[in-house]
């Protein structure tokens, strides 16, 4: 077995065509997870009755089970649920007419929400209570103080964590190939098995992921510099 260096380039071009799906599978779940995570974090911080218990259970379960479980449970569970409901109410919706990518997106969004909620929670807690008091002292109400004073600081502080989550989900999207999504790993698998050049294809895929990760880290560094431009610690 020899390594065909030239084929790496061929595979590279072929696999990079699946880049948009990989990015969709990364960015959409993170956007949905942003909203879920913020809501869950606020529910847990303010200990909203009843909802708080659900939120705790949700975060604990999704952080306690592998992401492939979430994909599989929703991939196999939702169609069943949809068909049952559809049958009961005569809606005429068939689960097999729903594209698989929607199930994958739902699963990834739910796990992104659980992970992001922990980031928001630690970000919000890390903003000193004096900031809230200062906002009250100039006559803001709780909502204004939260959205104008605390959240912007919490989000700026969470940027390194957001980068980690972004890179984590960029890599997690590769699991979608197990339910035959043709994202980058899926594409690499197809290129590999049609040409019987497995190593070369996965080297190409690895290089693309690596490149994307390095770009993401660079961008995060720039954003962090911008977002924390007005933050001065005691030692600066």
């Amino acid at each position, binding site marked *: *077995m020899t390594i065909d260096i030239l084929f790496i380039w061929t595979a590279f071009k072929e696999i990079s065509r699946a880049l948009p799906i990989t990015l969709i599978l990364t960015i959409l779940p993170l956007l949905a997870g942003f909203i879920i995570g913020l809501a869950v974090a606020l529910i847990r911080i303010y200990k909203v009755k009843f909802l708080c218990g659900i939120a705790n259970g949700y975060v604990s379960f999704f952080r*306690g089970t592998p992401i492939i*479980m979430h994909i599989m449970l929703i991939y*196999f569970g939702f169609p069943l649920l949809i068909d049952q409901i559809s049958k009961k109410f005569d809606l005429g919706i068939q689960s097999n007419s729903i594209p698989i990518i929607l199930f994958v997106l739902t699963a990834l969004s739910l796990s992104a929400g659980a992970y992001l909620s922990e980031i928001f929670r630690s970000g919000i807690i890390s903003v000193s209570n004096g900031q809230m008091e200062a906002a009250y002292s100039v006559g803001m109400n709780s909502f204004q103080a939260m959205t104008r004073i605390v959240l912007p600081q919490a989000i700026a502080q969470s940027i390194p964590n957001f980068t980690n989550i972004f890179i984590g989900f960029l890599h997690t999207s590769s*699991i979608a190939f197990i339910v035959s999504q043709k994202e980058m*790993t899926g594409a690499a698998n197809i290129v590999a098995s049609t040409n019987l050049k497995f*190593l070369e294809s*996965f*080297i190409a895929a690895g290089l693309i992921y690596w490149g994307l*990760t390095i770009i993401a880290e660079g961008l995060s560094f720039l954003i962090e510099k911008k977002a924390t431009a007005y933050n001065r610690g005691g030692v600066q």
Partner: protein
Amino acid sequence: MGKAFDPTLIVDFIPTLIYYLGVTLQILAASVLLGMVIGIAAAILRLFRIPVLCQFVILYISFIRGTPILIQLFLVFYGLPAILLFINIDISRMDALYFVIITYGLSNGAHFAEIFRGAIKAVDYGQTEAAYSVGMNNSQSFFRIVLPQAIRIAFPNIANSIIGSLKDTSLAFTIGVMDMMGRGETLIAATAHALEVYLSLAVIYYAVVLLFEKIFRLYENRINRHQSADVSATG
């Protein structure tokens, strides 16, 4: 699927699947040990800035953190036999389990290296100076003063990494390892009750993760028992 959802099967499948938990834990234990060795070596190479090897370690860590574990798994599975064939060693018939352990060991190694490096740097240099002032030499001050404090700092991150690694082992079945997931796949092929199998698996993974978290928390309290209250409350 075809058949209706049957919740009683979730409980029925658990004993069959839990029988293979041993394989999952075996992968985890071996890869964590391998990762510790690689991680400590890599952290030392970086901290002492050993030329050439240091750059190699930086590249290794960047690559592992920059690619999905699934890609790493395939690269080791197809790449390692190809590399070893150059020196006339044929491992293409080796059990897939070993490829998984090597991949997860390499992956853990990169994460541990960063955690160790950060933890060692987090120990105040005054501690080393204090150790010198009472007449300790380099290795004494490192092993008796700095390292125990670094381990305390690193522990929560190491625990997180181990739990993450446990969840990652669920991907080992993609190269044909018969762990819990692998057994689950065969169970689905035999019974066509996919959802029930995955629910059983989720229950087992969740229980194991909760157990691990509990054990790690107890151990963390133990290694922090000499910390004064105000420090351990924040740290």
